[in-house]
């Protein structure tokens, strides 16, 4: 008897559960159906908030799809589906369960349009939903969302979540979110005071944001405490700002280093300023574009490897063009550096127009692979991945060049020719070959720089012109014939520029740096690390 009763009870329980699940499902579907008929963004936003208020975690999936622009309404029966692009049509999924529901042509479906307000509403709704979710990362992001937009009604939910939270990071964040919520609620002064202390201790910009908002409407002791918190955060942030500027300077310096190091090599060995250097960088960037286009059309899965594939291609392309220029033009102008300057200027015009004719004059899209996008925080330092990778990359290139220059036979010959061409020739070094090799190497490095620079700027035929003046400044400042000079020159110019920028603005900062370089050259006419010796003449 007892067993039958338990079985019956279990069955009833199951039925109830199923019933409630079905009831929940029905509520969600009713809400989604309203989405299909909603007119205007304001109505859609209202529906989103209603769905979020149900508290059912199953709502998260369709809401995320809505924010991403993947929620569609079928024109024929106004039913709502999640649609994913599959070839030329859409693969439909059920919004609640996610199960496949056939395919449809794009013409049969209307996309539900969203604007920023709707996306914000979705984010807030999703945030509170996943608080009790299974994935620790989801709970963390839910806590984040609640911290940014504190809601006094969420305090109970947060309390419950904190109680059963096991992950330390998520727990800490939830407590911060709770403190933020307390600030905007009407809890007791003591609670609010504790909340202020917790938030002030964070020392972050969001904390500053919250306290400023609170301080504006507070009074009495709480107001003073909030003000004190604001000033302490302020001084922490100022210290971090200084560090941030140093980081920006380093990243700018690494860009300058990449752009200039090829030029430094050719200038050092051959004494010619290659005005077409900027165009080598441009060729590298365009090679990246071509590689990415090929990957996009034939093997989209390899996109994250596109830069790795583009590097050797860019090197070869730029080096080939460089050697062609050297053999075709510069070789005949041996010993006349100023004529070489002019001839390479003509070559740069031809290259620019050539690229313009082949690829068109407009910017070309070079995408960032996933590991190059976004950033992370180190304390209060915002470090973006692309800049970090470029710094690492430039140092790697520098190290490679140092190795080639100091440890290989080619490098030895290069250095010999830099110091004393005649003597080197007398010792049996084939200077024309060294010239060709050097020019090829310098151009190839410029090509590689182009791959990196395509990630942070435009890819257009005018790309080279933007970097040529800066490269000259680095080479002239750092001195010729010494790679360390270029390194030091690039980084000091970058940091100087970035420290001046907040005070003088970008333009005035640049002007000041240029004037300083001009004055510096008066003191040391051959740059920081000048080659010494009698053989070194004009």
């Amino acid at each position: 008897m007892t067993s039958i009763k338990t079985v019956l009870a279990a069955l009833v329980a199951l039925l109830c559960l199923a019933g409630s699940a079905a009831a929940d499902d029905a509520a969600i579907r009713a809400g989604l159906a309203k989405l299909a008929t909603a007119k205007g963004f304001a109505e859609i936003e209202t529906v989103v908030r209603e769905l979020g208020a149900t508290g059912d975690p199953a709502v998260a999936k369709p809401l995320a799809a809505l924010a991403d622009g993947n929620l569609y309404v079928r024109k024929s029966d106004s039913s709502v589906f999640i649609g994913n692009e599959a070839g030329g049509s859409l693969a439909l999924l059920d919004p609640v369960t996610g199960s496949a529901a056939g395919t449809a042509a794009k013409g049969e479906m209307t996309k539900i349009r969203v604007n920023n307000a709707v996306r914000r509403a979705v984010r807030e709704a999703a945030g509170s939903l996943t608080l009790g979710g299974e994935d620790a990362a989801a709970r963390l992001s839910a806590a984040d969302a609640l911290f940014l937009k504190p809601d006094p009604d969420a305090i109970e939910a947060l309390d419950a979540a904190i109680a059963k939270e096991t992950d330390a990071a998520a727990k800490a964040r939830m407590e911060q979110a709770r403190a933020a919520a307390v600030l905007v609620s009407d809890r007791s002064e003591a609670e609010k005071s504790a909340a202020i202390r917790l938030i002030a201790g964070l020392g972050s910009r969001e904390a500053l944001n919250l306290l400023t908002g609170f301080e504006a409407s507070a009074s009495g002791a709480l107001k003073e405490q909030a003000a004190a918190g604001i000033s302490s955060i302020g001084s922490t942030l100022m210290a971090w700002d200084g560090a941030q500027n140093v980081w920006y300077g380093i990243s700018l310096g690494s860009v300058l280093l990449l752009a200039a190091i090829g030029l430094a090599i050719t200038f050092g060995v051959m004494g010619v300023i290659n005005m077409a250097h900027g165009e080598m960088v441009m060729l590298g960037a365009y090679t990246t574009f071509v590689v990415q286009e090929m990957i996009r059309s034939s093997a989209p899965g390899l996109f994250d490897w596109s830069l790795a594939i583009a590097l050797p291609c860019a090197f070869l392309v730029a080096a080939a063009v460089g050697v062609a220029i050297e053999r075709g033009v510069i070789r005949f102008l041996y010993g006349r550096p100023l004529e070489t300057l002019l001839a390479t200027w003509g070559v740069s015009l031809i290259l620019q127009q050539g690229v313009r004719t082949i690829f068109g004059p407009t910017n070309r899209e070079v995408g960032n692979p996933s590991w190059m996008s976004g950033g992370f925080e180190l304390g209060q330092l915002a470090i973006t991945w692309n800049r970090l990778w470029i710094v690492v990359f430039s140092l790697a290139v520098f190290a490679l060049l140092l190795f080639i220059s100091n440890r290989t036979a080619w490098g030895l010959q290069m250095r010999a020719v830099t110091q004393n061409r005649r003597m080197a020739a007398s010792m049996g070094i084939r200077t024309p070959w060294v010239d060709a090799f050097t020019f090829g190497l310098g151009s190839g490095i410029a090509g590689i720089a182009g791959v990196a620079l395509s990630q942070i700027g435009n890819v257009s035929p005018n790309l080279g012109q933007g970097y040529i003046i800066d490269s000259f400044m680095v080479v002239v400042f750092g001195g010729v014939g010494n790679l360390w000079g270029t390194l030091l020159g690039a980084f000091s110019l970058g940091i100087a520029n970035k420290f001046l920028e907040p005070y003088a603005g970008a333009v005035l900062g640049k002007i000041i740096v240029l004037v300083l370089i001009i004055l510096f050259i008066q003191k040391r006419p051959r740059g920081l690390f000048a080659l010494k010796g009698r053989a070194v003449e004009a």
Partner: protein
Amino acid sequence: MITARILANGLDRRIAIFLAALVAIAIVVPALNLLLPPDNPLHVPTHVVALFGKYLCYALLALSLDLAWGFCGILSLGHGAFFALGGYAMGMYLMRQIGSRGVYGNPELPDFMVFLNWKELPWYWYGFDQFWFAAIMVLLVPGLLAFCFGWLAFRSRVTGVYLSIITQAMTYALLLAFFRNDMGFGGNNGLTDFKDILGFNVQSAGTRGALFAASALFLALGIAVTATVTRSKLGKLMVAVRDAESRTRFIGWRPERIKLFGFTLSAVMAGVAGALYVPQVGIINPSEFAPANSIEVVIWTAVGGRGTIVGPVIGAVLVNWAKSWFTVALPDMWLFALGALFVAVTLFLPRGIVGMWDQWRSGRKDRRAARGGSAEATVETPVVRAKSVSAPALDAAAPQPAE
């Protein structure tokens, strides 16, 4: 009076011909434009007058660069800066002349200051309502900049490619500075919308003719001055500095002073060219400071032949005419042609057109002399050979003084 002195100096025939030609052009072309009716086959249309007036200003600029580069060996990749500064000085005068005929009707402030909400004229604009003041500034400002820059650079013995690069830095810094709207020079729109110069309407055909004539005459003056300077003793010193600076220094001359003089004079000439350019073109804008423009000037000089005086003039007119022609005939491809021109000139015409001509002429003379041996032969210059100095005898006994 100047002509007499020049001829008295035994100036080269070619330069004299050129000067005469320029003076003739200065008179004839505006006459043909103004006096003849438009359907007359000899009539020179106004747009041609404007175009060639511009070319003559460019020719003066190229000439000034030739003085610095061809004769002193200073490759300045920033001469456009002096050109533009002279142009701005003239432009400021022209802006003040607009008075209340500007778009907002403000008698004191130029239009761009009005819509940027400036309340009064900045101090550096005072005085520009007088022509004599503006004229002095046209000469003074580029000259002063060149003097300071040159004094610092040459004293520290910055030479060769380094010097060229820092002249580029100078012009680039000026470009950035003048682009800033709060500098009070019109920002990137520059100074434009001119009405009068010295009371005459800038756009009337008569004024255009007069400006054309002025350009031709100033070019002639520039040629005369350059010729006089380079054929004087100072000129010989300049060439010495250009060819062997260290040696000149060791003999006892001060190359930095010589270079400074050459550089400053050339900057002043460039400033004058800029001042004449602006009323003919109707606008002055910071992009005149662009490094690319300055490099183009070098090309004009190289095409014409540096170190000759008439070469850069011819080069400037030719290259700019070619550019005007190409941008109409081959609008999609003209940069190829221009770039090819630069490469071809440096590879195949290292001495420029005039240089090539001179070389051909002297080559012909030599060949004729070699073939002939008649009265045409050049005078035999006696060759004095030093007695061969024998190596000092390796005589261990006689001590030799240390070297």
